Each structure stands twice: as C-alpha cells, then as structure tokens.
C-alpha cells in the first residue's frame, strides 16, 4: 500500500513539475561536476606538494645506490643500472657505524629519559596545583622558548668548563668530552625544546578529572602516590609521545652537542657532519687495504651515510607516527 502510494506520488510529481525536475537534475549534475573537478585539483595539488616534500629523500635514496659511473651517466635519473650496496658498507665504516649507532641511541635515550621525567613533574605542578607565582612562572616558561641558544650557551660552556676544573682532582667529572653536561641540564629541565614538552604534559594533565584525585585523597594517598597512581598511569600514551619527541630532537640536535661534547663522543650526527674529513682515513676496507687506496669521495657515499643515519628515526616514525601528530595537537598551542 505504502509503496504504491509512494509510486503514485512520484509519478504525480514527475508529471506535474517535469520542467522543474529537469532543471533540478541539471543543477545537481552541474554541482557534482564542479565538485569532482575541485576534488581533482585538490588531489593534484596535495600530491605535487607531497612529491616536493619527498623529493630530497627519494633523490638521496636513489643516489645512495649509484656507482660512480651511474652518477655521471646522463641516462640514469632515478634508477641506477647496477644497485651498488657497497656504498653502504663504505659509509658504515666512515661513520664508524657500530660505535656511533650505540652511542647515538644511548645518548638520545638517556637525555630523553631525564627530560620526560622532569617535564612530567613540572607539568604536574602546573596542571594540578595553585601556588604563588604560578602564572609568572608559566609565562616565563613559555618565553624561555624564544631565547636563542647562543646567548645561553656561551656562559653555560664557561660554567661547565670551570666546574669540571674544580672537580678535576676528584676524578668524578669527565669533563667537556662527554655528554655529562647535557645530562645535567636535562635533569634540571633545560634540554632541547623542554618548554614544549612541559606544555604537552600540562595540557594533558589538565584533562584528568578532579574527582579521581579527590577519591585518591579520601583513600589517604599522598601527593607522590596521586602523581604515580593517577596521573602517570592514566597518561602513558602522552609519556610515550613526549619521550619520542625528546628522543628525536636530542638525536637531531647538533649545536649544543658540538660545543659541550665536541669530538669526545662519536654520534651519527657529528660523524656525518665531518664526513668529508673522515673519509680519507676510514673509507678503505681494513681487510683489503690495497683496493681502497685510490678511493674517491663521491656523493653516493655521502648519501648512503645520510640514509644510514636517518634509518633509526624513520623506524621510530613509522612505528609511532600517530603519536607524533597527536603530540603536536595535544600541546594545545593552537592559540586559544
């Protein structure tokens, strides 16, 4: 009955307002076509930009496989005729890979660990408590982000230098050739981009409902227990985000490291920075010293070294890719 009625209604409407319907049909069709065109334009634009983004990386990967003849061959643009994996072996030797890799991971891990712990503590204080000077301190924290590094680093360098001289006789401080100084700074909440990390924590901790803390207090928990059992256990994902960011930023940081560590510790970044000068002494294969004597530094080796040095970061990114994006959104620094 219903369907019949509907059919009847449909037929009726068609017969009476045919011209109107065709107009409507044409209009919707038109908007659909413009919609499709605009979609295509958007996709073309986004894909082009994505290509521009990836271009240096793709070019680098392509070059890293090329032999020296492929490099000068004008026919070879993207795909080398012979995939040469020996570039990577040479690059690995020049970077002193087995040492640098362990050092880089250890260095970034330790610094990220300290930074995460201290940022969480500081973020907790800002998010949960009212205390005198809170607003002032928070403003100062945000402002500290725009202070350029050199103006601080000069005095920091002198401070650590004299500190290590003072304690030289005890044999405790190993001085400026280790990353001790950066560990100390990270422990006191002044590592790379610490302000952002603290901000991520503050904004996330504010979301935890107050009732949980009230309940915890009624059960007789002290502030440390509240921090551990409620805040930390509820924000594991945020902790991962902050840790990953800190790890990556410490890995990529070179200016402070150059000043405070210098050549003392072999890291992927500083070995890559000195690739040209290291090439001469390290490039030849120690097992076959005669073959390497005439080795030329071509860009393939450099590209292979760059690929090697970013592989750990790429692995981290593709595992924790969602966390990174969410982390930036969580900072809440969108301006409200």
């Amino acid at each position, binding site marked *: 009955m219903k369907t019949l009625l509907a059919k009847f209604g449909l037929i009726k409407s068609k017969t009476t307002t045919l011209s109107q319907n065709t107009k409507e049909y044409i209009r919707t069709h038109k908007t659909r076509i413009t919609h499709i065109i605009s979609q295509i334009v*958007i996709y073309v*634009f*986004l894909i082009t*930009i*994505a290509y*521009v*983004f*990836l*271009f*240096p*990386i793709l070019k*680098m990967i392509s070059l890293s496989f090329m032999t020296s003849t492929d490099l000068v061959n004008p026919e070879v643009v993207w795909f080398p005729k012979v995939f040469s994996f020996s570039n990577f072996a040479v690059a690995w030797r020049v970077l002193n890979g087995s040492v640098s890799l362990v050092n880089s991971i250890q260095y970034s891990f330790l610094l990220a660990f300290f930074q995460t712990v*201290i940022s969480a*503590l500081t973020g*907790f*204080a800002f998010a*949960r*408590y*009212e*205390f005198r000077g*809170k607003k002032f*301190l928070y403003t*100062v924290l945000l402002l500290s982000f*725009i202070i*350029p*590094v*050199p*103006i*601080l680093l*000069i*005095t920091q360098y002198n401070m650590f230098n*004299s500190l290590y001289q003072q304690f030289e006789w005890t044999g405790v401080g190993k001085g400026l050739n280790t990353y001790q100084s950066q560990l100390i*700074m990270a*422990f*006191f*909440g*002044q590592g790379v981009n*610490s302000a952002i990390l603290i901000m991520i924590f503050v904004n996330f901790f504010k979301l935890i409902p107050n009732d949980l803390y009230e309940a915890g*207090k009624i059960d007789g928990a002290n*502030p440390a227990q509240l921090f551990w059992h409620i805040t930390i256990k509820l924000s594991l994902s945020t902790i991962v985000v902050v840790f990953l960011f800190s790890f990556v930023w410490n890995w*990529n940081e*070179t*200016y402070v490291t150059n*000043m405070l560590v210098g050549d003392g510790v072999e890291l992927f*970044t500083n070995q*890559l*920075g000195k690739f040209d000068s290291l090439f001469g002494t390290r490039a030849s294969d120690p097992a076959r010293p005669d073959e390497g004597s005439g080795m030329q530094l071509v860009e393939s080796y*450099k590209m292979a070294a*760059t690929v090697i040095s970013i592989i750990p*970061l*790429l692995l981290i*990114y593709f595992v924790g*890719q969602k966390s*990174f*994006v969410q982390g*930036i*959104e969580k900072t809440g*620094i*969108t*301006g409200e």
Partner: protein
Amino acid sequence: MAKNKTLKSLTATSNIENQNKIAYLFILPWMLGFLVFVVYPFFQTIYNTAFQITREANTLVYTYNLNVTGGNFGTAFRNLYFFPELIDFVIMEATYVPTIIIVGFILAILLNTGVKGQSVFRVIYFLPVIIMSGPVTGILRWNGAGSLLDYESNIVFKMILSYSPGLAEALSGLFSNFTMVLWFTGIPVILFLNALQKINVNLYEAAKIDGANGWQILWKIKVPIVKPTAFVTAIFTIVQLGTFALNPVYYTIQNSIYTSAAGIGLASTFAFIYTIVVFALVGIAYLLLGRPEKIKQVTLSSIQRLNMENIAKRRLKQKNREVVVK
C-alpha cells in the same frame, strides 16, 4: 551530614596550605635549572659584552673595554662576516616565515576539505620534522636536492632581476631552497588543521544563510579564527629557523669563542645582538598577528537566528507528533 561537611571543609583548607609547598617540590628541579642554566647565563652573557675576556691558566680574565672605539660592539660592527650574515638571516626569516605560514594554511585547508587519505598526506608532511638535523639538511642542500625548479631561466625572474636585484636575491634564496622551506611546514600544517577542525560548523551554516560564498567564508571566518594559531606558528617558525643548524650566525658566534684575539667578550656581543634581532622579529610577528580579531557581528547574530530557527523547527516537529498521537 553536617559532620561530613565540616570535615570536608577542614581538609580542604589544610590541603590548600600544603599544596603550595608540594607544588614547589614538584617544580623545584625545573626552577633551579631555569635559574642556573637560563637566567644566570642570559645576564652573564650580556654582562660579558662590556669586557675583553681572555683565558689565562684556565681562568677567565675580564678587562673592561667599553671605551671610545666602542669596545666589543665596535669590533662587531667592523667584523667582516657577522653583519652580512645577520642581514642574510633576517632576509631568510622575512621570506621563509610568511611562505611557511601561507603554505601551511593552504595545505591545512585542502586537507580539511575531507579528502580521502588525509592521514597519508599528514604522515608525509610531518616526516621532515623527524629527520631534519643540521648535517642531514646540510648534505641534502649541498647536493642540490633542495631545489626543484630551474627558476633562473624563468622570464619573470629575469624581469625582477633587472628591476630589483635585492628582491631577486631574496626570491632566489626562497626558490633555491623551496623544498627545505616546505620542510618547515610540517608542524604548522598540523596546528592549522587542528584549529580548523575546531571551528563550529554552525558558523559556516550561519554565514551561508547570510549569503556568503566559500571565498567569503574563508576570509571572514576561517582566517580570523585561525589568526592566533598563525601567531603561534610564526613564533615557532622564527625559533625553528633560528636553531636551524645552517644558520650562519651560529657558527660565527661559536668560532669567535675559540679565537684568542676576540674571545668570549666578542662572542657574547654577537650573541646579544643576534638575540635582540630575534626578539625584534618575534615583536613584529606579534604586531602583525598577535592581536585576535573579532568575527563580524553579522554572522554571530545569524548564528543566534539559526539557533532560534532550529528551536522553532523542533517545536513544530513536536507539535506535529502530538497531532499524530492525537
């Protein structure tokens, strides 16, 4: 009941007293670090600018030298490298920051149109943030991988070059590193996208009722709402470009620390001037973007109208239902 209430208020007051101290306990490491590693170095470095500082037997010797020749500042002005590099830095900031903000905003708007594969694009645009370190960008730039376009043979570029070589130089700085410029948009895109997604959909509908087209919605609603985000992005980008390891000023400062003739005093002066320039750039960004804009009153009133219409519609529906029930 009454007993409970007094108990609660008692504990509440005692907690507030305690909370102060406990908060300071949590914040203590950061506060100490801030005083020792930020506040003290900041003012010490400024103080250094008035002295010639030499290292003798591992102690620093300060000699006051702010005399007629201008001391460290005079030397800094006469330095062959520092000021040209500083000017290069300012040109870089002035061309890169607007480009990064505009490109980031456009990308965010396009991603926000509901395209499929939004997350894939986001992953690609964010990737450089993860791998961008000084040596890596250095090597990629040196290799020419940063430049895509053969802009120098472009006729428009040649015309600009003949009229204003300065502008042409700034443009060529931008285009020869266009990929590297884009690489800085990773975080801005995410921030803009986040801000755009937070805009109340009612605003668009209200604007459409007022007869606004897509272009007007963009300029009258999206741009004003996103403006605070643009300010945050601008500051972030200014700082990021500053810490960018290829910033030539950094290395001049670093190298002058080690040279015995100039020493720490001159390096401090360089750092001080550089800091003032960065603060000035942030100040300019504040003047341009820092103050929030009000969205046109018209759209706000039409939101109210829309809400009222919705309420009226709901009431009508309810009435109809009541009629059906009857």
